[in-house]
């Protein structure tokens, strides 16, 4: 299995989880930010669909979505929903930085664009950003 294929499959798995997670976010985020959550949901579905095509093009079998995903924490209210949205974007950013490393050409650029989108969404939800979006090994020093 090539590095690019493995990284693309990991990214697809993260997008499946993000789509699921945004379903929860949309239901509990409140009126003010629901449109934003809906837009993010649509964007992640589109990225998921693109990654399914990419995985097939690379000769792999796209991992299927799970029926449900364990959330990292309980989401009883708006504040928790906003926190979950930021966490979803951070996780997506992480897998895309790996895909940038593993891929070349157009796929590398697509992954970089997805990383940038995830980083900007994360700061919109959380209000603050990090110095190196998507790089978990550099997060501890923030």
């Amino acid at each position: 299995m090539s590095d690019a294929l493995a990284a693309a499959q990991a990214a697809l798995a993260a997008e499946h989880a993000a789509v699921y997670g945004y379903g929860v976010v949309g239901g509990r985020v409140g009126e003010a930010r629901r449109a934003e959550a809906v837009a993010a949901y649509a964007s992640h579905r589109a990225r998921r669909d693109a990654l399914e095509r990419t995985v097939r093009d690379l000769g792999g079998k796209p991992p299927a979505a799970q029926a449900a995903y364990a959330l990292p924490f309980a989401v009883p209210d708006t504040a928790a929903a906003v926190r979950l949205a930021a966490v979803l974007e951070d996780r997506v950013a992480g897998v895309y930085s790996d895909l940038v490393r593993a891929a070349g050409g157009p796929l590398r650029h697509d992954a970089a664009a997805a990383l940038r989108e995830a980083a900007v969404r994360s700061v919109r939800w959380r209000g603050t950003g990090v110095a190196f979006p998507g790089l978990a090994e550099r997060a501890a020093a923030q």
Partner: protein
Amino acid sequence: MERTGTTRRRALLATGAAAAAVLTGCSRDEPGARRATPRSESVETVLRRRSAELSGALLLRYDAVLTAHPALAARLTPLRAEVVRHVEALAPTGSRPRPGTPPARSVSRPPSPSSPAPSASGPARPGPSVAASPAVPPVPADAGAAVRELAAAERTTADGHTAALSGAPPEYARLLASVAAAGAVHAYLLTEGSR
């Protein structure tokens, strides 16, 4: 996967007489090759130096805006600190200034209102040397306009890092993409955060 051909060609044009050394020994950072041919640089070193200089130029802009508008310090200092980290992460590993460049000054503290305006010398520590420092355009007198220009500079810098992705080795490409994403985050904070 890596398109190293184009960057190797650029490195040859840049180093001129050192081209032969680049071809024979220095496609990877090898200490032996560096000692034997101290004036040649590997392809990755050239890329790293240029990328660090790109973020270094952004750092100079932050310093100019902070000097002209000290009241923006609370807002800009955290972002400036991240740009410092970008310059350090992007710079060639174990880099040191070329002979003849001024000693790299510490960039850990932003300029205070009473300090002189930053000179166009190597911005990072230990310096990637800035062979031809970009002149920082004058800062607008209006603070809002200065912030908007800084946001535009962040976007341009991020675009520059994105453009370097194709020719970058895998690990460095991952770093470039992250720094480019951080630039987009900064541009957002500088643009939206003023509301």
